[in-house]
């Protein structure tokens, strides 16, 4: 076993992760602010008016990043949950629990902004279309995960039950992503794809990517804040928590 291997696992304990997370939070908030200011500046002042959708298209600068994050956070949450199930590490379950509310809110923002885009562009707030319906199911999966964990008093059992739900729900993520290809849907195809060059103006693309970075940093920052609270809640009766300066003061 080499040193690097050991060091990596050191941070897998709540006791060493708690102060580390505390140090990282301000940095992620700083990055959120920087990317947010630059992203919003591009979204409103640099990106040109869309030829077809006028100014209404500017909703995509938050709609697309929120939709990406809602799917990505689910994958990360399921990965942590799966890791907890396989290795029985304490921190994994806490990470999954900390990510769920942020993911749910991202799914909600995605649905909300989608409706506000759909009304002027399609003439309706909602359609039971493959993309929209699968994103709604994602939102319900998050809510189900949160509710299931809240319903079980024993934290370890809550983690296990939640992990199974999260892992089964993973099947929904590729369904959302490929829904625009598999079914005839009202929703437009992928805005950015690795396979082909993007179908939008350069500045619009940059605005969207920088806003996505902003949402990314925001999600990490807020999830780290929540995981710190969860660590304290679950480790209440341990010696190290009693010895923390913020508890002793």
């Amino acid at each position, binding site marked *: 076993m080499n040193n690097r291997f050991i060091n990596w696992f050191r941070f897998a304990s709540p006791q060493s992760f708690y102060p580390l997370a505390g140090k990282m939070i301000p940095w992620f908030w700083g990055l959120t602010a920087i990317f947010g200011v630059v992203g919003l500046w591009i979204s*409103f*002042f640099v*990106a*040109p*008016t869309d030829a077809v959708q*006028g*100014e*209404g298209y*500017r*909703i995509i600068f*938050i*709609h697309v990043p*929120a939709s990406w994050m809602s799917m990505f956070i689910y994958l990360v949450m399921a990965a942590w949950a799966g890791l907890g199930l396989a290795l029985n590490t304490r921190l994994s379950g806490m990470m999954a629990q900390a990510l769920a*509310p*942020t993911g749910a*809110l991202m799914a*909600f*923002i995605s649905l*909300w*902004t989608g409706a*506000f*885009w759909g*009304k*002027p562009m399609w003439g309706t707030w909602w359609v039971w279309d493959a993309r929209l319906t699968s994103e709604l199911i994602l939102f319900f999966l998050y809510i189900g995960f949160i509710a299931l964990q809240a319903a079980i008093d024993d934290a370890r059992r809550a983690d296990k039950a939640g992990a199974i739900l999260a892992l089964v729900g993973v099947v929904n993520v590729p369904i959302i992503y490929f829904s625009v290809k598999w079914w005839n849907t009202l929703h437009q195809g992928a805005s950015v794809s690795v396979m082909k060059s993007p179908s939008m103006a350069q500045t619009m693309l940059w605005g969207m990517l920088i806003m996505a970075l902003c949402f990314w940093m*925001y999600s990490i*920052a*807020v999830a780290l*804040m*929540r995981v*710190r*609270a969860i660590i*304290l*809640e679950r480790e*209440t009766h341990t010696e190290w*928590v*009693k010895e*923390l300066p*913020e*508890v*002793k*003061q």
Partner: protein
Amino acid sequence: MNWNSPAEFFAMGGYALYVWGSFIVCAAIMVMEPMLAKKRQRDILRTLRRERIAEELDRQ
């Protein structure tokens, strides 16, 4: 520059309701969520401090 006046900016080419309806709700969520996370941290710290004080009193 896309806008000639602040009024034009807020009108969003007639899409004001939809654009601001999206951005304001998104911003509200992103302000509220960290505040709730902070409150959760404050609450658990308060509980922990109380428990520590109770333990000390027990010992005396």
